[in-house]
């Protein structure tokens, strides 16, 4: 039998597949389609200090092999999430990763420490790539020193392993990765969405009410693979890979590039069963290409010198 397990800081996964943050809510809706215990883990929707109502609609648009979204971090606030959502997910035999966001370092600190109150969450995913998180006009997600700063604060505030989620909208992804590794990140999660726009011809306006949105889906897979491949050669912390995964073949491509586990976002919308179908298909794909386990494939797309 194929060994699908993956061990990452705080995460003892029976398989390397998890839904990506923001594409799976807090699991309730998809729990009507299948038993969530089949998943390796779940990355919860972003939590902020207080309730957020998010952006105006339209919030999504379709693009060639992808989509744009600008939800705007809508969520009921960290306390409500811990009170009502975490207990629901704790019924399942899976690892739980809380995605945390904020507008200020203080807010990040507050959200991170709030999760110390529950023992049901196994890791934090630090979302520094959200476009409305700025300080002095520079985004945390595009400036290495600011990314390091927020990583340090969150590491200090939390007793959980911290995966920093990197934005692909940067000139130098390696510098970002190294900065947060040095600042104490236990792992990386990459990539978040590429910033994009679509203009609606009849109204002559951007379709997304927020004007710009995050591009996700198959279209961005080559960018994700490139960044993971590059970063893998420069850091020693594990990477949770994501960006355009639609098939078990795609999963293997991410493992070869250097991801130790993967997340699936946009593909859930077309196929609510995508995560379980990929979990089922993965053993055959791994053995077809000569691998004995998931672990065996990680990083094997790199030249072995």
């Amino acid at each position, binding site marked *: 039998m194929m060994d699908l397990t993956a061990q990452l800081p705080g995460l003892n996964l029976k398989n390397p597949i998890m839904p990506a943050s923001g594409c799976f809510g807090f699991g*309730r*809706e998809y729990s009507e389609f299948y038993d969530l215990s089949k998943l390796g883990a779940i990355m919860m929707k972003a939590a902020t200090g207080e309730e957020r109502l998010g952006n105006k*609609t339209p919030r*999504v648009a379709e693009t060639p092999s992808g989509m744009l979204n600008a939800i705007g971090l*809508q969520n009921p606030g960290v306390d409500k999430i811990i009170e009502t959502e975490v207990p629901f997910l704790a019924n399942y035999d899976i690892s739980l990763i809380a995605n945390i966001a904020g507008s200020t370092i203080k807010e990040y600190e507050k959200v991170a420490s709030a999760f110390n109150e529950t023992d049901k969450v196994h890791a934090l995913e630090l979302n520094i790539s959200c476009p409305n998180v700025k300080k002095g006009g520079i985004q945390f997600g595009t400036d290495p020193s600011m990314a390091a700063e927020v990583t340090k604060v969150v590491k200090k505030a939390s007793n959980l392993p911290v995966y920093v989620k990197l934005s692909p909208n940067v000139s130098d992804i390696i510098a970002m990765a190294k900065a947060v590794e040095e600042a104490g990140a236990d792992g990386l999660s990459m990539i978040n969405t590429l910033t994009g726009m679509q203009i609606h011809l009849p109204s002559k306006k951007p379709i997304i009410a927020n004007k710009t949105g995050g591009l996700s889906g198959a279209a961005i897979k080559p960018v994700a693979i490139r960044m993971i491949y590059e970063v893998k050669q420069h850091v020693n912390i594990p990477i949770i890979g994501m960006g355009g995964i639609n098939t078990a073949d795609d999963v293997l491509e991410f493992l070869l590039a250097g991801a130790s586990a993967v997340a699936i976002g*946009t593909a*859930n919308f*077309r196929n*609510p069963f995508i995560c379980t179908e990929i979990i089922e298909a993965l053993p055959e794909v791994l053995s077809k290409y000569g691998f004995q386990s998931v672990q065996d494939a990680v990083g094997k797309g790199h030249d072995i010198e």
Partner: protein
Amino acid sequence: MLKKVDMQIRKTNVIALDTVEMVLKSTYISQTAVPGQFLHVNVPGHTLRRPISIADVNRETETITILFKTIGSGTKKLASYLPGMKVNALGPCGKGFPIDNEVPSNVLLIGGGIGVPPLYYLGKTLAKKNINMISVLGFQTAINVFYENAFSQFSDTHIVTNDGTYGEAGFVTAVLDKIGDYDRYYACGPLPMLQAITKELDHKSGYISLEERMGCGVGACFACVIPTDDHGGYKKICRDGPVFKAQEVCL
């Protein structure tokens, strides 16, 4: 409960300008769907599904009918499908029109363009409860008109076209004071129409069905929210709607 189903196309028919009527076989959907619910339809080659209302259900033949306008690449592709081919959908999605014992005995159905379809299944269902119905159906122009006869089977039906090429001229609101009495309205159509109606009929009990661009269609992604009156919150059109009490949401 929401399921993912493969449905075989039984019939497809162009019934008005750029408007396709498609009959699909699905035991599950035909047995569970209530008026106002929709299907989240997969169109191969597209990242996102397309929400399309359920326009009719036949429990004997286990078929459902959808009506859609060919707007962009998704609906155009769907329109090219032939009987025998399969269409995959999530459904039945959302909550439909409330059809309880409280439904008053005189109701008004107001449909605008491609908002007309869900009202048909609603009307047929209410007719079985012996509710008296008036229908006001608005279209852009004569060649867009469809289902006039179908609505006439169970209601006093008024057709309105923007340019007056068929029926009354103007918007659906133009005839609202010329029709008989009613105690509740059900409306579906473009946002400006719904805004005008809810304003004009704010003294009436009413239910409206809303559209919004959707991601998941099941309530997980927060794409399709609409502000509600209470505590500044939002509801999800795909899950909490698409039908809402007229007073419940801020258009």
